[in-house]
């Protein structure tokens, strides 16, 4: 037997649990089928994933897939500023001086103690009315050369939606940054003070201590929970649908309304989110294992 590895064999308790679960699923399916009298029709779904474009003579993504890609874009784009917020405020949380601690604490407490939905409504109002004009995003897009526009579209998606996507990214990043701040803070504080003492004892300066001793260890501890938080970020991006960011959930709502195939659309969307998040968690697991191997 290989140590540290569970044998994949089912006992009778496992069998009983599985049977019960299957029975429950069968019952729900039966209820939906016979009592709800819902007439399933999956035939419209493929069309809303991809459709044939006569002009371009090729398959192009339709609403659901467009939303899916926007969701991926939102997640990837907001990951960077969110991690940045997390890193900066997280470090500030552990600072010796009061002001940085106060600022970052305020940021974290404000966001953690307001429901995400409410935060996003309030924050969106400020973003769309204040920050976006300030950034001059619309002018930038309008005045861009074709080549420039193409590279912008590669990153942010269709030109008409760029301001929309950027608002979404800022919202999501602000919001997720608070959670990442807490992860980074915990990571830094998990490095025992004795490491600091050892570093100071060989004459390292505060900065060297930080750069050579604390940070490398903190990063290693923080990567797994940050990866988990990233998956949460992907899922939480769905609340951006409420401020009309054209991501998967928003376009799913539109599709559901226009086709009236509510269950089919939402089940498809659930499947898309699941695939994305499950893929990410598998990828992170593998990375983590590889990092662990490299360490020994």
């Amino acid at each position, binding site marked *: 037997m290989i140590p540290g590895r569970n044998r994949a064999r089912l006992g009778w308790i496992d069998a009983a649990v599985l049977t019960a679960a299957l029975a429950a699923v069968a019952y729900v399916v039966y209820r939906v089928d016979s009592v709800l009298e819902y007439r399933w029709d999956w035939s419209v779904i493929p069309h809303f994933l991809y459709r044939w474009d006569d002009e371009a003579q090729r398959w192009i993504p339709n609403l659901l897939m467009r939303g899916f890609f926007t969701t991926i874009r939102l997640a990837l784009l907001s990951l960077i500023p969110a991690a940045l917020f997390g890193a900066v405020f997280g470090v500030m949380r552990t600072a010796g001086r009061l002001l940085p601690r106060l600022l970052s604490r305020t940021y974290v407490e404000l966001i953690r103690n307001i429901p995400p939905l409410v935060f996003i409504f309030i924050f969106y109002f400020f973003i769309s009315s204040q920050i976006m004009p300030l950034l001059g995003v619309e002018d930038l897009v309008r005045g861009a050369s074709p080549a420039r526009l193409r590279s912008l579209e590669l990153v942010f998606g269709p030109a008409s939606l760029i301001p929309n996507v950027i608002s979404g990214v800022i919202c999501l990043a602000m919001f997720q940054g608070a959670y990442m701040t807490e992860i980074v803070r915990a990571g830094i504080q998990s490095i025992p003070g004795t490491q600091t003492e050892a570093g100071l004892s060989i*004459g390292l300066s505060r900065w060297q201590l930080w750069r050579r*001793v604390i940070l490398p*260890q903190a990063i*290693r501890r923080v990567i797994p929970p940050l990866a988990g938080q990233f998956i949460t970020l992907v899922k939480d991006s769905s609340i951006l649908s409420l401020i009309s960011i054209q991501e998967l959930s928003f376009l799913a709502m539109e599709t559901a309304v226009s086709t009236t195939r509510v269950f089919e659309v939402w089940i498809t969307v659930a499947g898309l989110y699941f695939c994305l998040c499950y893929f990410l968690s598998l990828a992170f697991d593998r990375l983590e294992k590889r990092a662990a191997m490299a360490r020994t």
Partner: protein
Amino acid sequence: MTSRATLIQIEGVSKWFGDFQVLRNVNLQVAERERIVICGPSGSGKSTLIRCINRLEEHQEGRIVFAGRELGPDATDLAQVRREIGMVFQEFNLFPHLTVLENCMLGPTRVLGMTAAEARDRALEFLNRVRIPEQAGKHPGQLSGGQQQRAAIARSLCMQPRVMLFDEPTSALDPVMIKEVLDVMNDLAESGMTMIVVTHEMGFARTVADRVAFMDEGSIVECLPPKQFFSNPSDERTKLFLSQILSH
């Protein structure tokens, strides 16, 4: 002993943690190449005293002078002082994310400005001295306690300090490993290193120390050459402590 230059001078040092006085008017002079062993019951302030010497703790009254420089709140060259004072902790405190070799090279490259090649040569030399050259490429977590403590000693030695402080370097180890570490410390003493060692290893105190200090409740009760200390201590508390510690 009096002919040698004084390296560390501790004069009337007192320290409080809140209302609690940890150090009471401590006086101690350490000459170059001198080896001092400090012992005393738990909580008597031994760790605090030696941590004040490299300023991991700050004292509130009195003076600590190291090589002519007073350690005070306005000591600007704190890092400069610390690089000249080696410190070995009870729990080793190696950097777990670096290999043993890298642990030893960090100070020389970052603090002393040596090139990687020079630092590496020096690190290997000292790892040889502490008899673990074959562990250089491993991470601390893969070493036994005794090997880790010797790596920690090598890490300090790589800074070529003028004094080495040891805070119960063998207390976290079992007997075989204790011997490995004490052997290394013996070698170090023979090489002429100035050492201040907090330990309850009375064998080490007897054979290596120039003077043994006994601390109780924050003060140094007495500080005598080992012969006198063990055969003829003057204070009742020292006698009691010795009878307890030597009985097992």
